[in-house]
C-alpha cells in the first residue's frame, strides 16, 4: 500500500479473527488492530481530525501552540500531527504514566507539564484548562468535548468495521474520552439495527479516584449513554489477564486497555453462547504493548504485575 505521506496512511487497520479465543464457530471474536496506525494507537484518528477541524475553523495558524490534557497516546498522536503541520505542542500529563510515553513525546518535540498523580486524568484536565485560560492565544483541542474526536470514528473506524464485517453483532471498546464508542457506535447503530455497543471502562487503583468529594467527578462532554448498550468496569487484574491471553492464544501483543476490552468482549461472547445466539464481536485493540513494558505488566506472575500496576494509569 502506497501513501504520499504518513498522515495519509491513517486508519484502514486490519480486522483479524481470534479463532482460539472465540467460544464456537457461531460466536466469534474479532480484533480491530489500531496499533497499526502511524504512531501506534487509535488516537491518531482523533488527533488528525481535531487538528484538521481547528485548521478549517481558522484557529491554528503556522507556529501556533496547542495544549492538551492527555495520559499519553493522544499526546503522542498530536505530537506527530503537530510536528508535520508546524505547531508547538504542550501536553499536560499525570505523573503516574509510563516513561515510554514521556520519551516518545519528548522525541517528537512536545513539551510536558506534569499534573499530580492523585486524581489521574481529572487533574490533568483541570491543570490544562487553567493554563489555557492564562494563554488565550493557545489552542486547547480538548479531546473530551471535541466533536471531531467522535466524528473521526463516525467517518473512519465505524465504516471500516462494517465494510469488513457486515454481520457484526457487538462492538466493544475502551471508554476514556468516549470518542471511539460514541463515533463508531453511532455509525454502527445507524447502519446495523440491533448492533450492541459495549464499553469497557478501566478500574484503577484507589489513588486515581482520590477526589475530595463525589461532586468533583468528571463525565466527558462527548458522552451520550444512549449510544451504549451496556458498560463494564474492568479491574487491572482482569485487564492484565486478558492482555496476556491475547499474546498466548492469538499472538497479539497489545496494550492493557485492549485486555479490558477483550474481557468485556468475552463476557458478551459467553452470554451469546448461553442464549444460543450467533455473534460476531469486534474488540478494539487501542494500542500495542510496547509503551507499557516499563510498567512490568508483561513480566513475572499476574499478581506481581498487578501489584506493579497499582496506581498507574494504564489506559
Amino acid at each position, binding site marked *: 500500500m502506497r501513501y504520499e505521506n504518513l498522515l495519509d496512511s491513517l486508519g484502514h487497520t486490519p480486522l483479524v479473527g481470534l479463532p482460539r479465543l472465540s467460544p464456537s464457530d457461531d460466536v466469534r471474536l474479532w480484533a480491530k488492530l489500531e496499533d497499526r496506525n502511524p504512531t501506534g494507537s487509535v488516537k491518531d484518528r482523533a488527533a488528525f481530525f481535531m487538528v484538521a477541524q481547528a485548521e478549517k475553523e481558522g484557529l491554528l495558524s503556522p507556529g501556533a501552540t496547542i495544549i492538551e490534557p492527555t495520559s499519553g497516546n493522544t499526546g503522542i498522536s498530536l505530537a506527530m500531527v503537530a510536528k508535520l503541520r508546524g505547531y508547538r505542542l504542550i501536553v499536560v500529563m499525570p505523573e503516574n504514566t509510563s516513561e515510554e510515553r514521556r520519551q516518545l513525546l519528548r522525541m517528537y518535540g512536545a513539551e510536558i507539564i506534569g499534573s499530580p498523580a492523585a486524581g*489521574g*486524568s481529572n487533574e490533568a484536565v483541570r491543570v490544562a484548562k487553567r493554563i489555557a485560560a492564562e494563554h488565550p492565544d493557545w489552542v486547547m483541542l480538548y479531546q473530551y468535548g471535541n466533536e471531531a474526536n467522535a466524528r473521526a470514528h463516525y467517518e473512519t473506524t465505524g465504516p471500516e468495521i462494517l465494510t469488513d464485517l457486515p454481520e457484526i453483532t457487538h462492538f466493544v471498546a475502551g471508554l476514556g474520552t468516549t470518542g471511539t464508542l460514541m463515533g463508531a457506535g453511532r455509525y454502527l447503530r445507524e447502519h446495523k439495527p440491533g448492533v450492541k455497543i459495549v464499553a469497557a471502562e*478501566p478500574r484503577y487503583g484507589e489513588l486515581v479516584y482520590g*477526589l475530595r468529594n*463525589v*461532586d468533583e*467527578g468528571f463525565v466527558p462532554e462527548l458522552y451520550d449513554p444512549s449510544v451504549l448498550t*451496556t458498560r463494564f468496569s474492568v479491574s487491572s487484574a482482569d485487564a492484565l489477564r486478558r492482555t496476556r491471553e491475547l499474546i498466548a492464544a492469538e499472538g497479539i501483543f497489545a496494550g492493557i486497555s485492549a485486555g479490558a476490552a477483550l474481557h468485556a468482549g468475552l463476557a458478551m461472547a459467553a452470554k451469546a453462547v448461553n442464549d444460543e445466539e450467533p455473534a460476531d464481536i469486534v474488540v478494539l485493540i487501542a494500542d500495542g504493548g510496547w509503551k507499557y513494558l516499563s510498567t512490568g505488566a508483561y513480566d513475572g506472575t499476574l499478581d506481581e504485575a498487578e501489584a506493579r500496576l497499582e496506581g498507574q494509569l494504564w489506559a
Partner: protein
Amino acid sequence: MAIEVRIPTILRTYTDGAKQVEGDGSTLGELLIDLDRKHGGLRERLVDDGGLRRFVNVYLNDEDVRFLAGLDTPVKDGDTVTVLPAVAGGGI
C-alpha cells in the same frame, strides 16, 4: 451470605474506614436503604431525588447499573456491588 459493597476512599468516612461492607435487599435501592441504617449518611451521597447522583457510578458484578435497571436493579446474595466516583478516562 449477603451482598458485598465496595466503598471508594472518599466515602469511607461513612463506613468507619471500611473498604467493603455488607447489606441486604432485593433491589439496589433496598440495599442502599439497608446500608444507610448501619452507615448513616452514605445513601445521601449516592442518591438524590430517587436517582443516582451524576458523578457516582455503581456497578453490579462489574456492570454499570444505569444500563440495568438503576436503583430497581435486582440484587441477590453473593453479588458484588462496586461504588466509584466518575473520573476522566485515561483519554489514552
